[in-house]
């Protein structure tokens, strides 16, 4: 039987539908979520009604906080940020109230909420419409952070996120929305904290997330004659499958981390640091990071391209650790 192929956005849409059908406490709100122009949430209002699917005012602080409260009182809200960048106006509600209420309450309350957000650069949208920010969510304790890189994972991870009793930040890359891939029709889950071994290899381990996974695969293809590249996609950066990373580096002895977020104090630094601490004895070479340098993202497409990780930069880093 041929596998069904749908897009990343369609997979996300389907996860919503199946979970909202299964569980009447799942609700959805955010700016323009009832608009037919928005692929990930299209048709949900028509299907589940305006009580459960609501357009909000442009007030991220109040509606994210409302999600936290509703989650504490038994609903399972999916709250959408049009772009993750807009979450900066609401960081107290995200990083304190959403992420820490469970801990601060000593477990007395829980916050089963999903904060969905588009992210990512490459669309020439400028400094306030291009960021990744997931390293900030990972830095602050209390929330899980999910970065699906393909349609299959997008659906399975979102279903896991909705079922999870913890706050989850679910990050959808803007440029992956139309990417196609095989996705089962029935509901399924992809577990958190289990890395996906995208490609086996023996010379060098490359850890990459989101849109970077595809770029790494292209780079690895181009280097076939020079290096056997193992590609790991952690899928969730909190929780992180440290074991898979350490095992892979144990085998290859070399590590490159490819990350779209800013380099300084970013996820790429974290992976480096973990390996420098726990995998040092297996390391044969310096650990390289290919991340966005510490520069705001410019509007001009050529300038933007200059900053973002790409196939060439990834290939160069792989060659460097092999040298």
């Amino acid at each position, binding site marked *: 039987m041929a596998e069904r192929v749908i897009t990343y956005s369609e997979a996300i849409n389907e996860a919503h539908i199946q979970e909202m059908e299964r569980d009447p406490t799942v*609700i959805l709100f955010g700016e323009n979520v009832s608009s037919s122009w928005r692929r990930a949430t299209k048709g949900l209002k028509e299907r589940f009604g305006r*009580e*459960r699917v*609501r357009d*909000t*005012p442009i*007030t991220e*602080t*109040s*509606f*994210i*906080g*409302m*999600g*936290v*409260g*509703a*989650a*504490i*009182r*038994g*609903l399972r*809200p999916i709250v959408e940020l049009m772009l993750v960048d807009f979450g900066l*106006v*609401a960081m*107290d*509600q995200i990083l*304190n*109230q959403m992420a820490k*209420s*469970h*801990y*601060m*309450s*000593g*477990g*007395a*309350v*829980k916050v089963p909420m999903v904060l969905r957000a588009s992210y990512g650069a490459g669309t020439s949208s400028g400094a306030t419409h291009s960021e990744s920010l997931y390293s900030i969510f990972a830095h602050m*304790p*209390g929330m*899980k952070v999910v970065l699906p890189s393909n349609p299959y994972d997008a659906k399975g991870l979102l279903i896991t996120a909705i079922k*999870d*009793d*913890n706050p989850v930040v679910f990050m959808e890359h803007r440029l992956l929305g139309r990417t196609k891939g095989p996705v089962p029709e029935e509901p399924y889950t992809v577990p958190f904290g289990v890395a996906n071994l995208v490609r086996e290899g023996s010379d060098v381990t490359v850890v990459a997330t989101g849109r970077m996974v595809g770029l790494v695969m292209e780079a690895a293809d181009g280097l076939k004659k020079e290096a056997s590249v193992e590609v790991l996609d952690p899928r969730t950066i909190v929780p992180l499958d440290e074991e898979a990373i350490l095992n892979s580096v144990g085998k290859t002895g070399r590590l490159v981390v490819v990350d779209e977020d800013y380099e300084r104090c970013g996820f790429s630094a974290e992976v480096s640091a973990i390996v420098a601490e726990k995998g040092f004895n297996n390391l044969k070479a310096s650990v390289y990071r290919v991340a966005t340098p510490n520069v705001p993202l410019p509007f001009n497409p050529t300038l933007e391209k200059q900053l973002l990780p790409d196939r060439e930069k990834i290939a160069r880093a792989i060659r460097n650790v092999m040298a």
Partner: protein
Amino acid sequence: MDKETKLKLYRSMVRIRTFENGCRKLISEGKLPARFGMYTGQEAVAAGVSAHLDKGDEIGSTHRPIGHLIAKGCSLKKLLAELCAKRTGFNKGKAGPYHTFDPESGSLGANGIVGGSVPMVAGYALAHQIKKDGGVAVSYFGEGASNQGGVQETLNLAACWELPLVFVCENSSPEVQRMLGHEIDYPQLSIERISDRASAYGMPGSSHDGWDVLEIYEVAGEAVRRAREGKGPTLLEFKVHQIEGNLEGRIEAEEDDRVWCPIHNLKQKLLADGTLTPEIDEKIRKEESAAVEEAIAFALGSPDPEPIEAFDDVFVEGA
């Protein structure tokens, strides 16, 4: 208003003040590590508002939470244990005064960020609206907090969605503008009455003396009813005078502050109309003192958490 209600209000206020006096004593003895804003002088607000709330209703509070939590009916023992950072506290000693959460009584919760609880309260109200269970939520905040972006956003959102929510602003700067006791050099409020902002959100609003629990009871009743009936939010403002300093075990404020003291105020009225006699008063005070003593004994006798428990509760286990 019937006698019983009046006495209930009186007792609720006495309980809060007795409890805070107990805290003052423990603090001076070095037995209570928490620092927090005292509610002394404001008791009428929490007592008058919460008299209309059931267990299934919620309140959201601030850095000055004791009155809100106690009036909502939380356990004095577990509250004091939490303030003493004990394992038997509501939150195993992790919350302290700024983040106390008690889902059982609907005290959800104190908040260390000015205005931080207000959007969350909209979520409690939304849950009631969606579950259609007739519940309401109350959001307490100060006049300083009333300016915070998230608070103003939530006023708008609650009105747009007609949430079953009552906004209660306790204005401690009714004459001189103060912040945390400091007389500020520039005003923090561009208007005299916070309730003047109600019409900016298309909701009813009004301002009242926060030392008159009978009036508070009336207006809060109306606002809670309105919310329960699905007619949307109300913004109530109560002017309060924060009574500073250690009361040294006295329940009523000193001479100077008596005029603002809600307990003194109600006592005079109830003595005059015969609801209260010195004997009943004595009895109430004794009972509340005993309850607070019991809470103190419970808290001080409770075990500390084990250091390793610091690592628990980051995530829901098994999830």
